[in-house]
């Protein structure tokens, strides 16, 4: 199929499909490749999307039968020890009314398929079941299209957008993004646990299609730098647990055993009781942060989404960064095509747009967050233990004076780790997120 397109996009996820929608909307001849049997077949995330970014691509998304699971009205943060933990949450009725769809959960198999269908309706040629194995280049090294795994599968394009995700052998092969290092990704596994919608409503105190997200930190990942999440879907719960891949290799823990332990945690077990697992999947999260972002553009190509390592770990935002980068890539390409110049210089505008947007500004703000977690394993070990001791002491009514309890708590905390280490932790934690 030696056919010429204006733009070839690799990967039908939030980044690629957002770009495709915008390009096709401007009349740009676009082809969208997806290696899965259908868009979404290979995609996984905790499962939250952000309405504001989606609306910038599809303003009328709510009328387009968006396959939403639950509209999120409450975000919880748990800090757990083995036996229990702290629960901090924020719920606001505004997220069910004026700010509805601020955050919502989806199943990516259904959402990405629906999203690509919107692109198709706008005129994009969507080609699933096709792996892009290499890029075409001319004598000067400029990217001129893609090579697919199909027979005679070369497709030429004036611009190629790499939106093929964090696990990208293509990026490594072409050198446009260096192969990622184990310490720069988290390996996460996910189970979707089937429960009747009424049961989910009751257990999370919600109704009317609203739901809750829970991010879980602490002593749940065998001491590794990792995190768990528990998100409500319409009639199921998404349970994920993940940790830094380098830690997995060192600690010799098995992801499928970790998720079993997580399911049995006293805070988690009652919420999923009686539910049956529907699916078990695995994926990476780009955790390396700002310093691992590759150059975002070059002669004839751009990179967006997870492929560009765009992930804001402390706010668990990724799909919005993907959509925003895909949108900005498309806007840049539309102007470049009008100028008839898709050189690196002409596409540099994408770098500018990204630098001025929340995408790179947030990434830059938190550039120290990954290293902070990596160097402070006490967040996953000593600290949850000390916090548990404190919580237990303060809640237990046993005739011991509160001043005496305070002393016990401080003494125990200093037994777990030194005062200096706590101060260092506070100081570097503040520096990592300020």
């Amino acid at each position: 199929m030696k056919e010429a397109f204006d733009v070839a996009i690799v990967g039908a996820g939030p980044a690629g499909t957002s770009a495709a929608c915008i390009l096709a909307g401007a009349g740009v001849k676009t082809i969208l490749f997806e290696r899965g049997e259908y868009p979404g077949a290979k995609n996984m995330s905790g499962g939250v999307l952000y309405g504001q970014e989606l609306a910038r691509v599809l303003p009328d998304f709510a009328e387009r039968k968006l396959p939403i699971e639950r509209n999120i009205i409450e975000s919880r943060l748990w800090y757990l020890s083995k036996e229990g933990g702290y629960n901090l949450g924020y719920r606001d009725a505004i997220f069910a009314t004026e700010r509805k769809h601020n955050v919502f959960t989806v199943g990516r198999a259904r959402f990405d398929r629906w999203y690509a269908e919107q692109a198709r309706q706008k005129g994009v040629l969507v080609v699933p079941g096709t792996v892009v194995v290499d890029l075409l280049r001319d004598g000067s090294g400029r990217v001129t299209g893609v090579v697919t795994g199909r027979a005679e599968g070369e497709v030429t394009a004036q611009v190629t957008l790499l939106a093929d995700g964090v696990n990208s052998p293509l990026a490594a092969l072409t050198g446009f993004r260096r192969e990622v290092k184990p310490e720069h990704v988290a390996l996460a596994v996910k189970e979707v646990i089937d429960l009747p919608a009424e049961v989910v409503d009751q257990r999370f105190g919600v109704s009317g299609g609203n739901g809750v997200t829970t991010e879980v930190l602490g002593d749940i990942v065998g001491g590794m730098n990792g995190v768990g999440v528990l998100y409500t879907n319409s009639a199921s719960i998404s349970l994920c647990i993940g940790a830094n891949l380098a830690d997995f290799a060192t600690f010799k823990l098995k992801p499928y055993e970790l998720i079993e332990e997580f399911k049995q945690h006293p805070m988690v077990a009652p919420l999923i009781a009686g539910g049956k697992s529907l699916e078990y999947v695995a994926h990476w999260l780009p955790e390396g942060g700002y310093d691992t972002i590759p150059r975002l553009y070059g002669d004839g190509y751009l990179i967006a989404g997870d492929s560009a390592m765009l992930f804001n770990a402390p706010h668990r935002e990724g799909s919005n960064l993907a959509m925003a980068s895909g949108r900005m890539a498309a806007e840049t390409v539309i102007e470049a095509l009008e100028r008839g110049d898709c050189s690196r210089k002409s596409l540099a505008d994408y770098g500018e747009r990204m630098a001025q947007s929340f995408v790179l500004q947030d990434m830059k703000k938190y550039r120290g967050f990954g290293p902070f977690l990596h160097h402070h394993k006490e967040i996953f070990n000593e600290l949850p233990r000390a916090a548990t001791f404190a919580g237990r002491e303060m809640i237990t009514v046993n005739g011991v004076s509160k001043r005496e309890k305070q002393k016990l708590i401080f003494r125990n905390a200093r037994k777990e780790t030194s005062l200096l280490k706590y101060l260092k932790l506070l100081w570097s934690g503040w520096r990592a997120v300020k």
Partner: protein
Amino acid sequence: MTMKIEDKLFLDRFRVDEESHLRIINGQICMTECKGQPCLYFCPANVYRLEKDYISVNHEGCLECGSCRIACPHLNIEWRFPRGGYGISHKFG
């Protein structure tokens, strides 16, 4: 009751390609030079299993995360995506 990895993978939908998309480049390295053999642990699909004198590759259940490609201490695993449309197809994702 805890669920075994075999039971978890049984929930998933795979279209298995007969030809493996994963290959250990030099099997001897695994048995002689690789002390930790971390692939036996971190692989979320238990693709790599220790047999009597080699590590077997059970690509049929691969979840395509890519971890073995970059976390093998000897970078001794050749990894490519399964052919288009093959491998796992997420039902929920």
